[in-house]
């Protein structure tokens, strides 16, 4: 088997062991999903302005955020890699005949996949059967759904490429706390996880469109609800691919620089 597939498989299998974490995660995500929607229901009831997103679309947007939290959250991290760097266990990674970037990329991808797969179905089911306006609605067409899946997976790929920079930064900072916090807070906001991007003021929307973050979450979720038309979605996929290429090339370059001056900690 291809070594990267193999590490993906192993990480996936070991990720499936954490059942208690999955249960706790599901409960939290259901709770937050409901709370967010309640807040917006209250806003919408008292708002005089015409919202740029219907309540139904908004509920779907929020549920998709919660269901695929493991795909889109930047604070979702692999402590093993941090420990590898700070404790010096990276010595072993460096004496393997494979590229560290791809190796870690596969690990991170598998971790997010296993975590999402463990949690998504139960929440999905519950969210579907909630009473309106709290429920998750179906996508308007079958093709929209296919496009959604495609953009979601590409978004995941972009997200992992972004998160890679957090890990690379630890070579210099020796502690993951700062970089995780900065990148996670900024990224979360700019990907529409706190306020859905359509509800932001226009100047802020323009900023988010120029950055890679919204392509990981906001874009696939709006493809799902049909707010983004199918032709627009296809263009979006192209932009996702371009971002992915840029981030990976940049990440590889940074990692190469980090490794050239690596100090193996702890003797």
């Amino acid at each position, binding site marked *: 088997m291809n070594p990267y597939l193999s590490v993906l498989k*192993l990480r996936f299998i070991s990720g499936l062991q954490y059942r208690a974490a999955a249960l706790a995660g599901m409960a939290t995500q259901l709770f937050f999903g409901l709370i967010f929607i309640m807040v917006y229901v209250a806003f919408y009831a008292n708002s005089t302005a015409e919202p740029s997103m219907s309540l139904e679309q908004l509920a779907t947007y929020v549920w998709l955020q919660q269901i695929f939290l493991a795909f889109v959250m930047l604070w979702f991290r692999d402590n093993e890699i941090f420990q590898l760097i700070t404790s010096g266990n990276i010595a072993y990674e460096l004496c393997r005949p494979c590229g560290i970037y791809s190796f870690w990329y596969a690990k991170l991808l598998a971790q997010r996949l296993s975590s999402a797969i463990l949690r998504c179905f139960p929440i999905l089911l519950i969210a579907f059967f909630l009473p309106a306006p709290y429920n998750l609605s179906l996508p308007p067409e079958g093709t929209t759904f296919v496009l959604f899946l495609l953009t979601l997976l590409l978004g995941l790929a972009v997200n992992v490429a972004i998160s890679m920079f957090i890990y690379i930064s630890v070579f210099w900072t020796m502690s993951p706390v700062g970089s995780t916090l900065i990148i996670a807070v900024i990224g979360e906001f700019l990907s529409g996880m706190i306020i859905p991007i359509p509800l932001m003021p226009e100047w802020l929307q323009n900023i988010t469109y120029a950055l890679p973050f919204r392509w990981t979450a906001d874009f696939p979720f709006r493809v799902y609800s049909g707010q983004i038309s199918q032709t627009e979605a296809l263009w979006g996929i192209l932009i996702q691919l371009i971002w992915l290429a840029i981030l990976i090339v940049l990440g590889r370059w940074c990692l190469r620089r980090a490794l050239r001056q690596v100090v193996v900690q702890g003797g």
Partner: protein
Amino acid sequence: MIELQGINKSFKVARRTAGFGQAVKALFAREHTIVEALHNISFDISPGEIVGYIGPNGAGKSTTIKVMSGILVPDSGICQILGYTPWQDRTSYVRNIGVVFGQRTQLWWDVPVIDSFGLLRDIYKIPSAVYRENLTLLTESLALSDILQTPVRQLSLGQRMRCEIAASLLHNPQILFLDEPTIGLDANSKIAVRQFIKTINKERGVTVILTTHDMNDIEALADRILMIGKGTLLYDGTLVDLRSRFGSKRIVTIDYHEHAEPVDVEGTSCLSWTPERAVYSVDIDDVPVASIIAKLSEQIELVDIGIGTTPVEELILELYKEHQI
């Protein structure tokens, strides 16, 4: 096969003295010192050798191993191993070597050992026939059959270490770097590991470079010793040479029927004494052992006599002393 020429490596180390005031000061101005970890290290190792790499703590042993295994990039110097420069051709080079860092783990913590082995098989692209053959051999000689299915976190240190060594040999490496492979092992496991290292060296011609603080490892395995201190190579030679350099000393242990006071013998120094046993250190170039025994038996009734060479530990200490490290 392994050629190092004038390897230098230095690290920048942040330093401050203890205390709150100093810690606050370090927030604004960090003091760094440059520590020279390796200074002009040169040696050659031929195929099939077992080389013991020794030196006090912090001497640069592990750093050398890391340079040789392509993990660290030295500041200057040439290193050619199997025709590769380790840090430049890292991915193609490391396919040919196996590395064990005794203080670290390469196995996945939460999954059974065999899963980690499976991953290594894929990483090194080991053909399945070779993998199966090696796995059988390693399982037998390192007694792994009972622990392969256990998650790594539930293994004892010794069990884990045997798995680590096995993991480093699955891909038939030509060179094996062992950085303190017997750390924390019990006597049984130590002997098993040593035996195994000897076997793969003889049967497969694997070149072995090992660092250790356990001089018994060196005595049991290494034909050749490299000693490093403060980043400089201080000794390169065989254990036999080292012995003959300091080795005219013998330790004579005498058991006898109870005798009230210590007996002095000319030309020896008494290391310890009890009413029934005494230990003498003798230089056999000055005084032959036979004459000591003859002199002793005149005064006391001997029960048992043991004659030993100086333990390797003491030879090493002598070397350290000679170089003032």
